[in-house]
């Protein structure tokens, strides 16, 4: 007999057995549904939360920053027969440019793993207005390139995003501290007599206090003059397509350029740690809920196999092969998993929508359209696996003994 024909019968028997035990089926389906709802909801919540945190973190920083290597003392190695005792005082790291940065930029532009490249010059300065002073970080940028690293124009709360020709864009906190509005003048002092007066063209709010209080954007040329690095830049910011590959890509870029490459993963180690332990917790919840669902299915089917001993015996007596009995119960497990997870998946999805509508509204949880189908698939497979033990037991019944069972 073809398997498809046999499956027709098995499908029919499995369905009837489930319908016949309506109460049991209903209860275990409810149990599976609760489990699946929890899994779907918590998965969506945590995935959404993590995506949100990462998005916020990366919204205000480059994925990989390429910096000039640290300056170190060169110590002549001692000759083979003598020892050298070295007392070293570390070098002060003065502001200096990346050599040949134009070439490096061009090479990075061609790199397929890198989405955006933006040379930046940055250095410290004092901002003054009247008697008020604030220490700031000057950032000389090439606006179109920089926009692709941090879309600053989206974060403007006043004015326009223009730098150059004596214009600067500053953060909201700095504007408040110095009482600055659009069109006001701001004096920047980078030390050693290098000073400039700029117009405030735009005010941004990135939502990170440190940045909003310190960043002053200028164009490359003006910043280079102020920081006394004509034609130089101090860092190349890049973004990559695969954010979790940033570490690996950074190492590759370091080898490629001979410079220092810092990935966001390195600079946000704490955050990543927190996220991964959160993921682990979620994973554990999922596994344990999955296990209890599996045990629920297994125990219901184990009871059902005992209850149906005689009927199994009759089926076997009528010529039903062992494999058919096995599949009847595997199918029941799969059906319970599918049915329960379909209900539970729907409920979980609904919970996410409720959370989005009425929750704390800190962030929106997007539900991956594959999440519920995936949960259903996993639950179905879990059901089949959970059914394996009872099903094998049913298939092994000796028909002569099973028929006499009361």
């Amino acid at each position, binding site marked *: 007999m073809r398997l*498809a024909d*046999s499956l027709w019968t098995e499908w029919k028997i499995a369905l009837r057995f489930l319908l016949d035990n309506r109460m049991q089926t209903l209860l275990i389906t409810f149990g599976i549904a609760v489990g699946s709802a929890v899994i779907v909801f918590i998965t969506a919540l945590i995935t959404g939360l993590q995506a949100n945190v990462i998005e916020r973190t990366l919204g205000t920083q480059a994925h990989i920053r390429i910096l000039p290597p640290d300056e170190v003392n060169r110590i002549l190695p001692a000759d083979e027969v003598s020892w050298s005792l070295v007392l070293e005082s570390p070098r002060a790291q003065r502001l200096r440019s990346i050599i040949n940065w134009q070439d490096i930029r061009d090479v990075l532009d061609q790199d397929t793993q890198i989405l955006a490249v933006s040379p930046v010059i940055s250095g410290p300065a004092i901002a003054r207005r009247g008697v008020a002073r604030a220490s700031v970080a000057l950032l000389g940028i090439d606006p179109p390139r920089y926009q692709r690293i941090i879309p600053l124009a989206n974060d403007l709360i006043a004015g326009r995003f223009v730098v150059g020709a004596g214009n600067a864009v500053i953060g909201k906190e700095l504007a408040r501290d110095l009482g600055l509005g659009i069109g006001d003048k701001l004096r920047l002092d980078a030390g050693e007599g290098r000073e400039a007066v700029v117009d405030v063209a735009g005010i941004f709010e990135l939502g990170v206090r440190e940045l909003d209080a310190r960043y002053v954007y200028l164009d490359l040329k003006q910043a280079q003059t102020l920081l006394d690095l004509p034609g130089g830049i101090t860092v190349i910011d890049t973004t990559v397509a695969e954010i979790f590959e940033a570490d690996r890509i950074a190492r590759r870029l370091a080898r490629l350029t001979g410079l220092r490459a810092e990935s966001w993963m390195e600079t946000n180690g704490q955050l990543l740690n927190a996220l991964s332990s959160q993921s682990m917790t979620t994973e554990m919840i999922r596994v344990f809920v999955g296990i209890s669902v599996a045990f629920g299915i297994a125990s219901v089917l184990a009871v059902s196999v005992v209850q149906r001993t005689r009927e199994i015996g*009759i*089926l*076997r*007596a*009528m*010529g039903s092969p062992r494999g058919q009995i096995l599949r009847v119960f595997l199918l029941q497990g799969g059906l319970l998993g599918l049915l329960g997870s379909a209900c539970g998946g729907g409920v979980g999805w609904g919970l996410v929508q409720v959370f989005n509508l009425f929750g704390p509204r800190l962030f929106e949880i997007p539900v991956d359209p594959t999440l519920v189908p995936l949960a259903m698939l996993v639950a179905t497979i879990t059901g089949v696996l959970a059914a394996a033990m009872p099903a094998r037991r049913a298939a092994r019944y000796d028909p002569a003994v099973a028929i006499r069972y009361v």
Partner: protein
Amino acid sequence: MSEPTIKRAGEVLRLDQVRKAFNVGTPLETEVLHGIDLSLCRGELAALIGPSGSGKSTLLNLIGLLDAPSSGELYLLGQATRDSDDEARTRLRNQVIGFVFQFHHLISAFSVLENVLMPLMIRHGKPSSADIELARGLLDEVGLSAFADKKPTQISGGQQQRVAIARALVTRPPLLLADEPTGNLDTRTAQSVFELFHRINAQFGCAVLVVTHDPRLAADCARTIQLVDGLVVSDEANPSSR
């Protein structure tokens, strides 16, 4: 397998020195059947009688391939079965044997009609319209066409037994086995079930072996086989049968 198969014309079943012991290898080991020789031909209707505990059900289970003999050989349609595996025995059960159990044993999750169709569904999946027609015909034959869509729990014991007979016949088996099919029925209903066996036997020509305690019902059968303490003590034709 070396034994020559001397097959009588139309022989459906032959037992050759069949023994059956239970709990083999334990202190509780008991031999229930002590070497049974028996054969049954096409169109024969035989009653198997004997006191309780004489081994009738054990014998029927062996013939129905639900259990295997401890020694001896059992031929179904001339085919030796001792060395066949579970798969082959299962197939033979479906194709050669119709079994009516003492306690009718319908499957409660299915309707009367579906119960009758079950052996065919096991054999080839979704029943064809010819299958359904056949099953309805058999239900008609046992006088239950009006109950086709009822659940087994909604009909009486006698009716359930008749459904079980229809189910045993739906594959048109060459051999019909019935283990005390009337054991828990009143005399009149038992009578009508036996009527049915006679009619089916005449109509389909299948061999019927039926266990009964009722001497009057047995006397009605063409042949009576008596089993006492695991041995066939008499096997004779009934002159009084029709």
